[in-house]
């Protein structure tokens, strides 16, 4: 069978097709069809010839096979140090083979590549810091994912995820109406406790345009309310766009580069339309990476920068604390052992390690903060990065992957983990559910709301 009804080389572009794939519970039919899917070897080789430039070509060629990357990989460590989990081996035996065979590979091999690309590597980029030749396997796996996606060999959930982005321009089926209604609902819901609280939609020329992760309006609308409360207390002139509010990119995890470009164009269009002085994104690592770090390149911005300065939430929060827009009540600071999860996507990939630590100084009583080991840009992935968290087929492998973070957290002795990233937050929640080690986890927003000093004029009248 060249193309299946559900599993095929075509991206999901219509609501109808989206529902069709979505209704195939667990992707049973989807994966069955995948076993019959033809590999378009000619197209595969053509794509490689066009897109594989000196960086990747050289990396594949000059890998000295020294094995210095092995211990750098948490998946190698937690999977019994199986040699098959050595990062260099993982990429040489998948992408390396496709290139060696000039694209002449079988369906079975492509399915093997899919397993490796999505369940043996989270594209955390940690190995890249250990290779003497500067070879970054995370970058190469991301490239391999693109090749696999274009041939239809992509996990069911990520095919749907990128389809969601294509149809709804959000990782979940949140429409413009749903979004605007959620903003109104959250403002109303909280205005009694926070008089004057607003979530202004489409205000032109605001100081800040706020964007978030579609999970927030869909499943955790209180996160949106918390952002509003903090902007309100900080006295910010802010807005959210009715369109272009979603900054995540499951398409980046799926390797659907065309869709990535469309997502980011949508956010940037909101910036052009509303002309804010700057944009702030929510506590989400991959959303930040997609919109701020990689996004400018997807849309072809030569300077590699978004149209206006675009900050991760932790950067805004630190600024608010440093300028005194938000003041912390010292009596309410955290007084229990607490640790911090450094997200790969804005720490290793954008150097925001010190920002989060300065926030910790404001909100944690001295002596209670425990660093994970290793930490900062050497921290390990939460265990569920790169889409791993959401793929049912690889849930057992993901649960094994969580063991590294579990051990790191337990070693700190902390009972509370601050995780300013949706994906890390999810992984840590799952690890508690799976292994019950007795920890709690939190974004920064609720913690700060509970310990900030609210100016009298913003308090409700008694």
């Amino acid at each position, binding site marked *: 069978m060249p193309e299946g009804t559900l599993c095929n080389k075509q991206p999901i572009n219509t609501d109808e097709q989206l529902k069709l794939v979505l209704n195939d519970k667990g992707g049973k039919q989807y994966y069955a069809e995948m076993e019959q899917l033809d590999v378009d070897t000619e197209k595969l080789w053509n794509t490689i010839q066009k*897109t594989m*430039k*000196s*960086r990747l*070509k*050289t*990396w594949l*060629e*000059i*890998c*000295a*096979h*020294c*094995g*210095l990357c*092995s*211990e*750098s990989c948490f998946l*190698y460590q937690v999977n019994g*140090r199986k*040699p*098959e989990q*050595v990062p*260099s*081996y993982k990429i*040489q035996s998948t992408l390396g083979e496709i290139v060696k065979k000039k694209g002449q590979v079988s369906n079975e091999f492509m399915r093997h590549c899919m397993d490796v690309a999505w369940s043996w590597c989270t594209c955390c980029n940690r190995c*890249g*810091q*250990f*290779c*003497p*030749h*500067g*070879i*970054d396997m995370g970058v190469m796996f991301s490239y391999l994912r693109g090749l696999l996606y274009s041939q239809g060999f992509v996990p069911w959930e990520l095919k749907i995820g990128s389809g969601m982005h294509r149809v709804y321009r959000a990782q979940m089926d949140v429409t413009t109406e749903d979004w605007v209604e959620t903003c109104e609902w959250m403002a109303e819901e909280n205005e009694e406790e926070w008089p004057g609280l607003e979530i202004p939609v489409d205000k032109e020329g605001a100081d800040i345009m706020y964007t978030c992760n579609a999970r927030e309006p869909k499943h955790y609308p209180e996160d949106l309310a918390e952002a509003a409360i903090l902007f309100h207390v900080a006295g910010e002139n802010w807005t959210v766009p009715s369109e272009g509010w979603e900054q995540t990119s499951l398409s980046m995890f799926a390797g659907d580069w065309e869709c990535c470009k469309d997502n980011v164009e949508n956010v940037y269009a909101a910036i052009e339309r509303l002309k804010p002085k700057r944009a702030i994104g929510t506590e989400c690592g991959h959303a930040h990476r997609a919109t701020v*770090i*990689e996004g*400018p*390149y997807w849309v*072809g911005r*030569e*300077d*590699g*920068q978004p149209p206006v300065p675009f900050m991760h939430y932790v950067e805004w929060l630190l600024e608010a604390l440093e300028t005194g827009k938000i003041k912390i009540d010292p009596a309410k600071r955290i007084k229990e052992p607490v640790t911090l999860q450094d997200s790969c996507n804005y720490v*290793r*990939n*954008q*150097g*925001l*390690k*010190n920002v989060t630590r300065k926030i910790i100084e404001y909100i944690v009583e001295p002596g209670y903060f425990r660093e994970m080991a290793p930490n900062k*840009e*050497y921290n390990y992935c939460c265990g569920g990065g790169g889409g791993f968290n959401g793929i049912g087929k690889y849930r057992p492998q993901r649960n094994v992957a969580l063991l590294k973070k579990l051990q790191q957290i337990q070693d700190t002795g902390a009972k509370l983990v601050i995780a300013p990233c949706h994906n890390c937050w999810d992984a840590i929640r799952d690890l508690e559910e799976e292994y019950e080690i007795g920890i709690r986890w939190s974004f920064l927003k609720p913690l700060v709301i509970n310990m900030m000093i609210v100016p009298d004029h913003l308090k409700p009248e008694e």
Partner: protein
Amino acid sequence: MYDLLTGPLLWLVFIVTFVGLIVRVVMYIRGLNWKLDRVAYRPHLGHGLKHAARSIVFFLIPFGTHSWRSRPLFTILFFAFHIGLLVTPIFLEAHNVMLEKSLGIRLPGLPAGVADMLAWTVVVGGLFMVLRRIAFSDVRILTTAYDYILIVISVAPFATGLIARYELGNYDFWLIAHILTGEIWLLALPFTKLSHVVLFFMSRMQLGMDYGIKRGGMKGTSMSW
């Protein structure tokens, strides 16, 4: 035979090797693509070059990076092997004599004892590299025949040179063997994975620019990578 190998053939080898390596460098730079690599090389060249230099320098210093510190024994082996490989042929007194004869210039010469020690380091280091590839499962799985051949190509000039120097067996034979294996080694540089003599710098420079421009350098963080 000796005159041919050290005369016209040697010149040809030098030309092919050096032109070959220059071509590799040029091809590498021409094959960079800001859009596909997702690094704005040109608009932030200053940041990029600063971090590129930083990346190269720290990886050239033994124990200079987190990576080198994580495997101390490998690091020592690796640096000793590479120092021996590079320093010995360039500063060996006998090579200097040849250089002076043909071009009339000479480089500072190595004392014989030091040269011997460095050559032995390469031979023993090569041996350990082979043993390491056999002993550790994470390195074994990566190793192919090609990797062994490259070690043999790299170590052979040193092994034959030492045999000739100690005059074990037929001196003339081992001298010719030394020259031939040396020329094979030079020729292998641009055409095999040994091209890392130049591509190491290019690849490190690229990742340095990647970190410098995109992954933290512009946020004022000096990331170690």
